[in-house]
């Protein structure tokens, strides 16, 4: 609600939201100081699923960390695969064949759609709508089946290798993907927009809720759909092109309203853009090997390397420090939701409980990625 409320700071109580709570999607805990139903202070408490992946990276070889990357953002695992592969390839100077890069882009974008579908489903669940969840899962299931076909797993993929990908795609995958594109395109207007986006209850529920100003985005380092919903046209695929993204024609959806609805719309439009990318990639898919020449044991030159990719939630950075050894000397993962969530306390202040939770849903949190 935009009406300013006078919060009484003397008559408050503390509401422990989580770590086990239906709205926190996992094990996030938010310590809410409440005045009645109004949030006076919100303080996220992290670390309930912290696994110290960065130490694991230092303990093994470069290749041995690859399976771990999928265990952070389990919804957009292939982007984490991709980001890690890119930074190591950058450090070790490995060439990737073009076909492999195309396959990477296709699978990452499919995974991005799956991630957005799941976000949409979970967001609607936060808002109390259960049926859309299953419609989205119906579509997501198709993507997962396709990805299972090429990667061998359904959720925590370990598909990319330094210098290429694990497995080539086949005709069945290509026809399946084309069918899926057609299917989602026909379903988006009805099951997503008519049923939910244009629904007056939803509009009233998330419009003008959770305003994040562009300046707040910059000060807190928010990226991805959160920044794009605040009118900042920043997408690493465009601003800092990596892989073969420059070859495709796609738009970066930007909405100026800064509210939860804007973030919602950004993600809905991103799905359509991802479909466009996949379609073009399938059309242009070159022939050739899917695995380049890469030494079995990598020993990158000592130095500092940074590489960023755009995941479904924002900019994922890998800061790699090498000392010339065969394992990463230091690998820091800059996960997007860690920064996105850090502005929660400032923005949620003065909201009503239900709005604060709707706002939290609109940030698209994946807790294992925050806690790493």
């Amino acid at each position, binding site marked *: *609600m935009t009406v300013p409320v006078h919060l009484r700071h003397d008559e408050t*109580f503390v*509401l422990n939201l989580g770590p086990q*709570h*239906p*709205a926190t999607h996992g094990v996030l805990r938010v310590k809410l100081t409440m005045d*009645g*139903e109004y949030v006076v202070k919100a303080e996220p408490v992290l670390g309930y699923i912290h696994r110290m992946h960065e130490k694991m990276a230092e303990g093994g070889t470069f290749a041995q960390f690859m399976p771990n990357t999928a265990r952070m953002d389990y919804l957009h695992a292939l982007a984490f695969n991709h980001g890690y592969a890119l930074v190591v390839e950058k450090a070790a100077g490995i060439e990737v064949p073009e076909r492999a890069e195309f396959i990477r882009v296709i699978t990452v974008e499919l995974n991005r759609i799956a991630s957005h579908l799941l976000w949409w489903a979970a967001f*609607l*669940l*936060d*808002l*109390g*709508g*259960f*049926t*859309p969840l*299953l*419609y989205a899962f*119906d579509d997501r299931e198709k993507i997962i089946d396709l990805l299972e076909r090429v990667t061998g797993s359904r959720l925590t993929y370990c598909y990319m290798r330094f210098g290429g990908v694990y497995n080539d795609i086949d005709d069945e995958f290509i026809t399946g993907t084309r069918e899926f594109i057609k299917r989602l395109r026909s379903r988006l207007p009805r099951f997503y927009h008519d*049923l*939910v986006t244009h*629904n007056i*209850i*939803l509009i*009233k*529920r998330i419009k003008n809720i959770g305003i994040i100003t562009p300046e707040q985005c910059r000060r807190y380092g928010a990226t991805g759909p959160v920044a794009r919903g605040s009118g900042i046209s920043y997408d690493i695929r465009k601003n800092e092109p990596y892989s073969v993204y420059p070859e495709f024609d796609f738009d970066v959806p930007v909405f100026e309203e800064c509210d939860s609805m804007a973030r919602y719309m950004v993600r809905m439009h991103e799905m359509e853009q991802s479909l466009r990318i996949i379609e073009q990639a399938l059309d242009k898919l070159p022939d050739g090997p899917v695995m380049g020449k890469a030494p079995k044991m990598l020993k990158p030159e000592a130095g500092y390397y940074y590489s960023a990719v755009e995941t479904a939630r924002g900019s994922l950075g890998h800061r790699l420090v090498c000392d010339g050894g065969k394992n990463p000397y230091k690998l820091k993962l800059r996960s997007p939701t860690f920064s996105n969530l850090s502005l929660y306390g400032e923005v949620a202040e003065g909201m*009503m*409980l*239900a*709005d604060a*939770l709707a706002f939290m849903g609109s940030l698209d949190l994946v807790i294992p990625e925050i806690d790493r």
Partner: protein
Amino acid sequence: MDTSIWRALFYLVGIMAFAGLNAAYLGWCERKGAARIQRRIGPCEAGYGGLWQPLADGLKLMSKQLLVPQGVDGIIFRLAPVLAMVPAITSMVVIPFSENIQARAMELSVLLLFALASLGMLAILLGGWASGNKYAIISSARAVSQNLAYEIPMLVTVITVVMISGSMNLREIAIDQQGGFWHWNIFRLENGHFLTMWISFIIFFICSVAETNRAPFDMAEAESELVAGFMTEYGSMGFGLFMMGEYLNIVVGACLTATLFLGGWDCPFGLTPGVWWFLIKIYVLIFTFIWIRWTYPRTQIYRLLNLSWKILIPFSLANLLITAALIKVF
């Protein structure tokens, strides 16, 4: 009217059976309906089509211990689920199922129903309050403000119906609408009431969804915000009674809507009226409750109050005035 003890016993048993069956099997209907809408199968393991599922659920709930957590107000905590159930069953007493099937045809039976509905709200308040849980207390506070806001437009629309029928006796109101759907209050041709009464019907229906705390107005048990709302601390049959009370409230709401607006036991074409028509009407209404629940997301508490105070109350008042004018003019 016959007042023998057998009649009382017959209705006591009949109403209890009707209430019990509905409370149990509406849960099954809800799950099956939701499953169909979501293109799933729903309960299918226990019996044919999962028909024994309510029985299995009931047995499970009954065999569990009623946990009374430390720090709750024991008496009120135990009383609240019963209080949720009793008014709902009692309401059945005045519902006219057909011309001959009605336990007690009271004057002012409409008023009695509203009094009992408010008691049901009290159960939520007490249950949430006695739990001593923060989520439960927020939920109770929401439930009270919501019920308060929605009783006003509901009563105002009922007054319009009462004005048309000239009685507060549900039986009289139903008899007044006999003889085909053009006599029903919602489409009433007489005096041109059909011009406004369909709006009254919609208002009344929305209010009964809100009164029974059903989605999209389930603010009190919004599970993604308040965990389980006032039921957070309840387990076993305490929870079971709350659930049954909720379903019974839906039945009562549907019965009331059917009687006030849809001609009670009347056949739409004026032929062979009977209890079957009444049952068909209430189950269609109940299906609509389920259908609505599995279509929309939840509203926000202040949106809900806005809807009542800014849209429903002005509209119902305007309807009241127009109806009064129509009655006066013709």
